[in-house]
């Protein structure tokens, strides 16, 4: 067990050094680096979308409907004459919004359930894990569909539905970590010193579970992107005229045979983003798990 000593107070904090070291290790793998670059680009595009987009993503111009890709409209126009490239660019914001929101809900929720179950054990564990298994016993997309059906379609509801179905793996993972940790000496020492359960959970268990949970959350982001796009495609996620990529595919479907770009472009965007998240997740997993370094 290593002891953290704050000898370099005033200098860069230890976590910053670690983050830089991790980033350097990630960039060494070319595929992971590619994933990181695409995600960085996604964030950048989302931030700058209003300035980068050549046109208003919602402005209709029926005289210029269904134009093929070409100068002026690099990705063509849709059935209302809206510029597809501008819609794609603004769509990055929705995609990021979904990914971030789902992750922010799922991480703490899953970790709370898992750490509490693993630390207290016994009945608490049995009840919480039963609950987890209950949710896991449905394919996640189908359960998300059921939630959206009950709540009504919409972007917020889609996010909530995805979050409600995505926490069990995180709970399982943090429970396993908490189970192995709760017997260790430093936890027992903390308890003997009179630390409350809340303190042990928040100050000792949660920080130690965090790295593996973060890796798992990153690996999960690709499937969040895909599920959100699927819900949008089924007409249950973001509603028109919002330029959500799945919804754009759904709208473009009717014109697909003549205007293939309406479907091809948003789909390629989804593919690029989910590939990037998968690459980053795999890379993080390899970098943080030395056992897999073969």
């Amino acid at each position, binding site marked *: 067990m290593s002891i953290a000593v704050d000898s370099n107070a005033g200098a860069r904090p230890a976590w910053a050094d670690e983050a830089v070291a991790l980033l350097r290790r990630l960039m060494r793998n070319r595929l992971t680096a590619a994933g990181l670059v695409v995600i960085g680009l996604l964030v950048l595009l989302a931030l700058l979308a209003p300035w980068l987009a050549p046109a208003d993503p919602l402005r209709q111009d029926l005289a210029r409907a269904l134009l093929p890709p070409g100068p002026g409209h690099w990705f063509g126009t849709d059935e209302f004459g809206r510029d597809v490239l501008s819609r794609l660019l603004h769509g990055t914001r929705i995609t990021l919004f979904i990914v971030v929101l789902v992750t922010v809900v799922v991480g703490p929720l899953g970790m709370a359930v898992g750490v509490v179950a693993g630390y207290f054990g016994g009945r608490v564990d049995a009840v919480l894990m*039963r609950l987890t298994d209950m949710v896991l*016993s449905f*394919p996640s997309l189908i359960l998300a569909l059921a939630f959206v059906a*009950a709540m009504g379609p919409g972007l917020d509801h889609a996010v909530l539905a995805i979050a409600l179905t995505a926490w069990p793996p995180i709970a399982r993972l943090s429970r396993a970590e908490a189970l192995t940790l709760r017997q260790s000496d430093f936890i027992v020492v903390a308890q003997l010193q009179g630390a409350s359960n809340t303190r042990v959970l928040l100050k000792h268990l949660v920080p130690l579970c965090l790295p593996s949970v973060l890796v798992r959350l990153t690996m999960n982001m690709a499937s969040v992107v895909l599920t959100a796009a699927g819900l949008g495609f089924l007409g249950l996620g973001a509603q028109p005229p919002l330029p959500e990529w799945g919804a754009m595919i759904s709208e473009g479907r009717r014109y697909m045979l003549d205007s293939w770009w309406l*479907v091809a472009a948003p789909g390629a965007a*989804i593919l690029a983003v989910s590939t990037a998240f998968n690459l980053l997740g795999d890379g993080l997993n390899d970098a943080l798990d030395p056992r897999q370094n073969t």
Partner: protein
Amino acid sequence: MSARPLLRGVAGIATSLLGLLVLTFLIGRVMPLDPVLAIVGPDADRSTYEQVHRQLGLDQPLAVQFGRYLLSLAHGDLGQALLTGNPVARDLVRVLPATAELATLAMLIGVLLGVPLGVLAATHHGRWPDHLARVLGLLGHSTPVFWFGMMGLLVFYAWLGWAGGIGRIGLAFEGNVPTVTGLLLLDAALAGDAPAWRSALRHLLLPAAVLGLHSMAYLSRMTRAFMLAQLSQEYITTARVKGLTERQVVWGHAFRNIRVQLLTIVALAYGGLLEGAVLTETVFGWPGFGSYLTGSLLLGDMNAVMGSVLVIGVLFVSLNLLTDALYRVFDPRAAA
């Protein structure tokens, strides 16, 4: 097997099923969407509303409602579907064979391509078959299946004219094949109708290939990992030293030892196909469970939605249990 693990297994199944029921019940009854409004519409007056409210038993305590729900389920009653006017249970029996046919062919494609690819990647670790498997695995994991299906339709149906397009069979054959099993390929073969069989196959291949890509990606990845673990062990070195051919070493020794693991993975992947089927069927107008579910969803037909979700949940749980059981049967170490 002694009685205790068996008992625990039965208790596990019972609680899983009860969990499924509670969850579907809660989603169906407690969520904000008002089931009365779905039936009477927003323009109904107060007395009609309350009458329907009472008829549905919604004025009763939740526990009573749940009891009634269980009771009707015990009679195989999932309620009436608004869309078709039929009992949901009968609708599901009608649509599930179409999904089973699609998912089974997809699984076959996934296994026949994914497993050899995984083995090849493991035996050529770090060389081009390995990279190929990795790229395919990554794409299979990252591609939105509904988009892939639409691009497939665009290329193979609209541009090349190879695939059959929307639906299960050509319009000319629609309704001509007598339903025996509900599996159209099998029914056409039983009827001895070769043109209908060919038309059905042409319609089935593209959606099955699209759906199968995902399982192929998953299976090749897992096969590769399993094989790599085996190939690094000492008995493999022994076999090589003994002078066995590479083929005997790979297929006769290493592959033999991963068969049980593979079997469980295949069963799990089959469950994943049920999920992919929802989106794929919507794209291909495939009249199976997925189209039924999404159609009901868009109409707000909660009976049909919850019935479908429950049935899928039960199928999913049974698949997992079956996997567990297979593992015990085939791996003597797990039975202890």
